[in-house]
């Protein structure tokens, strides 16, 4: 029953950052040749540090940002060739939940208004709207009495529930959640994660779950893709990735999570240096200047993203 709902093939996004009369235009290659498949009903986690292109990838998939090239196949249809109006219709099936519920809810509108907007945009008749809004609001754990209030009257967790209700309004198939719990406190974070899991079961949703927080991804995802400077460098089933990370960067990331168990001592890998500037990435493997397993070949040749031990990884350690 593994049917791909979404296939991203060789997706690229370049942002123009500098251009002058006598200057070569310079680009930031935010997403670089990304290939991922999301199966119906699963949760694909995308992790990486800030600036690795994970949010840009999410937005490119919905064409909120127009990708430079590559294919996005949703239910067998390449949506990159769709006209604007057709794309608009398709967004009924693909929705997004954003990180900061404080910025993404219009402060001038009541919750009723915020939640009816997607219904109006997709031509749902007025008489059906009220019932749909109430039903969805109850599903996310709020109730009718909240409808006439404004966003500022809610706590962070409640606002994120409203953000989720808005995405859920049209019963989409795919939800791209971009750091949905990063702005929330731990006790509220677990409420929202549980809600997302319940909704997935109830509406057989597919999630693309973008986060920098590895332990959150470990909890919610089925498969995980790790990104570094615009590229996916490792993709594996959650259990495999967390128990036996292959790429040196993934190993570093996992070892860097502070754990709450005082007795669980682990070898910590501490990287030297910062993330290189994405406008001027290193030659060869992009991770080589910070990698402790760096070999000569890494400095010159980009490792291919290929199968090793039945998993996908981009590292010369595993190429023959």
């Amino acid at each position, binding site marked *: 029953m593994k049917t791909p709902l979404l296939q991203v093939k060789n997706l690229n996004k370049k942002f123009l950052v500098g251009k002058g009369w006598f200057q070569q235009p310079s680009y930031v290659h935010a997403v670089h040749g990304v290939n991922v498949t999301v199966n119906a009903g699963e949760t694909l986690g995308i992790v990486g540090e800030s600036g690795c292109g994970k949010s840009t990838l999410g937005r490119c998939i919905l064409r909120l940002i127009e990708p430079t090239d590559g294919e996005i196949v949703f239910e067998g249809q390449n949506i990159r060739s769709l006209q604007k109006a057709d794309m608009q219709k398709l967004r009924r099936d693909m929705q997004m939940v954003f990180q900061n519920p404080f910025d993404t809810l219009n402060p001038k509108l009541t919750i009723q208004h915020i939640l009816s907007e997607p219904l109006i945009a997709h031509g749902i008749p007025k008489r059906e709207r009220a019932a749909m809004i109430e039903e969805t609001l109850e599903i996310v754990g709020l109730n009718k009495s909240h409808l006439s209030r404004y966003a500022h009257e809610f706590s962070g967790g409640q606002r994120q529930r409203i953000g989720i209700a808005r995405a859920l309004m049209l019963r989409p198939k795919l939800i791209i959640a971009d750091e949905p719990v990063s702005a929330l406190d731990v006790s509220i974070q*677990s409420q929202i994660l549980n809600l997302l899991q319940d909704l997935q079961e109830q509406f057989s949703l597919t999630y693309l779950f973008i986060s920098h927080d590895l332990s959150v991804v470990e909890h*919610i995802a089925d498969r995980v893709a790790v990104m570094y400077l615009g590229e996916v460098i490792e993709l594996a089933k959650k259990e495999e990735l967390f128990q036996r990370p292959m790429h040196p960067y993934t190993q570093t990331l996992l070892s*860097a999570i*502070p754990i*709450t168990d005082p007795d669980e001592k682990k070898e910590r890998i501490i990287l030297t240096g910062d993330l290189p500037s994405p406008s001027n990435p290193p030659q060869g493997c992009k991770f080589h200047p910070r990698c402790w397993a760096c070999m000569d070949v890494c400095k010159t040749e980009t490792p291919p993203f290929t199968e090793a031990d039945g998993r996908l990884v981009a590292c010369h350690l595993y190429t023959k």
Partner: protein
Amino acid sequence: MTNVLEVTGLTTTFSRNERAFKVVDNLCLQVKRGESVGIVGESGCGKSVASLSMMRLLSKNGSIAGRIQLNGADLLRYSEKEMQKIRGKEIAMIFQEPMTSLNPVLTIGKQLSEGLEKHEGMNRVQSRQRVLELLTQVGISRANEIYHEYPHRLSGGMRQRVMIAMAIACHPKLLIADEPTTALDVTIQAQILDVMKKIQRELGMSLIMITHDLGVVAETCDRVLVMYAGQVIEAADVRTLLRSPKHPYTMGLIKSTPHNAKGQKRLHSIAGSVPAPDHYPKGCRFAPRCEKVMPVCLEQNPPLLDVDQQSECRCWLYRENRESTAVNG
């Protein structure tokens, strides 16, 4: 060992529209020489206000009561001028967002020398020498170049290193770090925590680590206070707190971190949210969210009770302990 800092009954009140809100309520805290104490809590629990109160950096509508003794001298008796001599020299602070705490129009070198010239009376040449040493100490390899750079040219991790260098410039006895790694990525966070631990060891400095992340506490602290709605609800050494938490809130907090839920489908969650300072409930402030709530919890706010040798806890579940100690004592 002697206490570097002794805070007794610290209460910080903010007044607005002729109403007063107790944001920190009766906080007691001792920090020994070379010790790290963590203050943990969710947003709005008063942990940042507590630290700003200790530095006396509150805005005008905030007032502080209680005693804050640094090496025996009460900071609340000092005038603002005298306080300026303490800040940076005796107590230093690192903030969450290094970009907003560094001056964007001054070079790194200039900002770091300022404190040295003011507190230590160094001249330009001496302070430059010292700044370069400091930058190297916090793990910045190109100290000579960074000296002339402006903050916007540095990455988040580098800026936080500069903040640490600035904080330790005058060998403070106590460093207060308010969410020093929250704005950083995990790999950078690991670097910064590593630098902080190294420097604390080298200088024998005491540290107050304010954070919402129990993982960071487990890595860096010896003792922990857990705050909820302005009050300390549990205090213990780090092992005891993480291994056998006493307060239902601490238990819930530890259980709801995804890392501790290995293999479980659903996460443990604490229902509801933190009350605002003007809506604190009558009894225990955690009672409306508590799984183990009893009738007495809704009536009376429990005091901080000794549970055993290791931990103190603000919860009526441990009432018998107090009664038995009362009988024995």
